[in-house]
């Protein structure tokens, strides 16, 4: 026989468990420590996002015709910045990071002023636009091995990889995004797209760290001409390429640039790439 105290305990647990269970059922995204809720995300979306991404999430908001690049089409569910292999859906954390970070040189700002809960809620709602989220699971997060040691040799080897993989065809020999193929590139919306210009950028499309850059090689930027090199590039080569690409950011103080500067070859390259003169109205040295 249950005592009265035990009965009350059972009732109390049941009362507490019901709302917890209900909340658990509503959670549709998980990022950081938060569970996102579609309903709350919907309200946020129709306050902040619809102007560009559209009422139906198809990237056809009232401002889309005026934006370059076009806003993300959530119905297609093709995402650039992922930690998952090319062609797969990103993780909730990937989407969370994208909302947090924004996309440099686009109209998508950082939404870091929203709360963590807000951003997670938004992800829940964004995922309702495409049937892919019902039929597929996000890809497995790729393994990122520890970064290899930064040496002059790793930078030089990275430069060789840059040539071998013909990165220069799009990004240009000096990383200015002006390679011979640059003008022909289009994205999945058939819109012209410019390769990343390392010489002026301080942030990459998908983050600021070496790991973020490594991830871009290995996952590709889906929806753009930037492919994944996961099947063709060894991890150690990828890290060396990261080290070399950092030396193309000639206006940033990076350890890679500082090390490269100590060599005669590196110092000459950097001097040639640093164009002095009047800054443009953009405030960015070209």
């Amino acid at each position, binding site marked *: 026989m249950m005592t009265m105290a035990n009965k009350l305990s059972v009732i109390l647990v049941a009362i507490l468990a019901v709302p917890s269970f209900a909340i658990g059922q509503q959670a549709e995204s998980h990022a950081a420590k938060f569970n996102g809720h579609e309903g*709350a995300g919907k*309200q946020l979306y*129709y*306050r*902040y996002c*619809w*102007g*560009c991404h559209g009422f139906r999430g198809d990237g056809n*908001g*009232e*401002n889309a015709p*005026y*934006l370059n690049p076009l806003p993300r089409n959530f119905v297609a569910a093709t995402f650039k910045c992922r930690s998952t292999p090319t062609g797969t859906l990103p993780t909730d954390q990937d989407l969370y990071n994208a909302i947090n970070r*924004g*996309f*440099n*040189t*686009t*109209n*998508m*700002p*950082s*939404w*870091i*002023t*929203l*709360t*963590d*809960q*807000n951003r997670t809620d938004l992800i829940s709602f964004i995922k309702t636009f495409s049937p892919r989220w019902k039929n597929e699971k996000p890809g497995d997060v790729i393994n990122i091995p520890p970064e290899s040691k930064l040496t002059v040799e790793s930078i030089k080897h990275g430069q060789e990889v840059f040539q071998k993989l013909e990165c220069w065809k799009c990004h240009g020999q000096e990383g200015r995004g002006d390679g011979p193929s640059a003008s022909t590139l289009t994205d999945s919306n058939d819109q012209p797209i410019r390769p990343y210009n390392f010489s*002026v*950028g301080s942030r990459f499309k998908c983050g600021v760290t070496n790991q973020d850059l490594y991830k871009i090689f290995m996952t590709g930027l889906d929806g753009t001409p930037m492919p994944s090199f996961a099947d063709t590039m060894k991890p150690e080569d990828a890290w060396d390429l990261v080290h070399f690409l950092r030396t193309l950011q000639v206006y940033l103080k990076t350890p890679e640039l500082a090390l490269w500067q100590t060599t005669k070859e590196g110092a000459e390259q950097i001097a040639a790439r640093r164009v002095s003169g009047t800054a*443009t*109205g*953009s*405030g*960015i040295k070209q």
Partner: protein
Amino acid sequence: MHSPLRNRRIACLGSAGFVGFLFLSILLGDIPSACALPLPRTGVYALPAFARKYGMPCSSCHEAWPKLSPFGQSFKDNGYQMGNERDAPIFQQPAYWPVTFRITPTWHRESQNRTTVDDPAGPTGAQMEARVTTHGFDWTGLDFHTAGTLAKNISFYVLPSSNNLGQFHFEAVWTRFNNLLGTTWLNVKVGKFELDNLLSEKRILTLSQVGGLYQNYHFQPPGESSYVFGIGDNQVGAELMGHSKNDRTRYSAALLSSNDGNPGLPSGRGYNTFLAASHAFEAGTLGVQRIGAFAYIGQAPTYFQYKASGANIAGTGIGNKGFYRAGLIGMWYIKKLDVTTMYFHGWDSAFLGTNTPANGALPDGAQGPTWNGGLFETHYTVNPQLILINRYELIRMSRQAFVTNPGNLGNLDALTFGYRYYPFISSRAGFAFHNEFARLRQRGTTLTGLDMTTNSLLLGFDFAF
């Protein structure tokens, strides 16, 4: 709103005690016409020009325009920049011109009891008290906002603003250097600008004659001559401001000319200071909660060193005496409901409080007036298109300028409620149907020493493009 309009408004609402009343009656001729003023709202900030530039709806930066959302506050604190290397005008279409105008056609009704009027049955010059009620169609002043970036990390704001007679003044003229030394903690602004108030009168959601300003910001004890001061007004000076990247922590310190934002050099020889700091924190699903403190510290001259043909020579005001206003503020969000609470404290030197030149002796019983104020404002944002507004303000004198004054002389209560409905939300223009009622009661400030009560009812179409 600035002088002379704002000063006249203070005369109606804040300084109509016995002594002040007699003084003002002579100065203004009659109180009813002085109180039947154009609507106080001008220079209120909400810029579709930014929405057009960045392709975002009003609702991104404003919970309900002109009230900022945390995202909008961050955008403002970044010098009207998104920080995506696309802020400089070089990235805009050449045809883009960062201009917004705003005006509000209205119908409003103003009613004030115990207004001093001529007594038609009495001898010449005799006066009596009567309720005066006026109403009709009207419009506010016109604001022309131009603002944005001149280059990356260099921002500007120019705001020619008129009253409803079309008489323009400059409500804001400033340039700002953002992210100095590569940090968001160092930003310098110079010119005439909106003070960094968490509860900014330039973002006020109410428009009526009574509800269109924060009483606490402009209050001066009854009987005191109006001196140049106003937290709610834009001021001229230089501001150092900084914030964390997510804008959760903010500070600002401004050195201000003591002329209440009016053009030309000040009448006195002092500077004022405005300090503000706040911190926000996340409270789970409730939202971002923010707490802060502010202080406005200044001096005002009590007499002039030189006169010419009997008139004071501007800039020669001396005998400065001090005053300060300080407060604590909290902005609490409970999902769709948000509550702003403010505690306010004010002190004026006994010389200012009794209008006594500093080179003379204080009258018997003179003392520095002090008072405490409070504000409780709630908004219920049904959705981005509809917001319900309610505000209650009170001011309680804690020490009168003269010990013989009634203890409650000048005490004030103001209640405002209404709603704004935005039929559409877009990134091109803003439009709101506005309906509001406000009531103000001030103790002992009529000719007979009884309470003065003012009611405002306003229906308007507020639009900006």
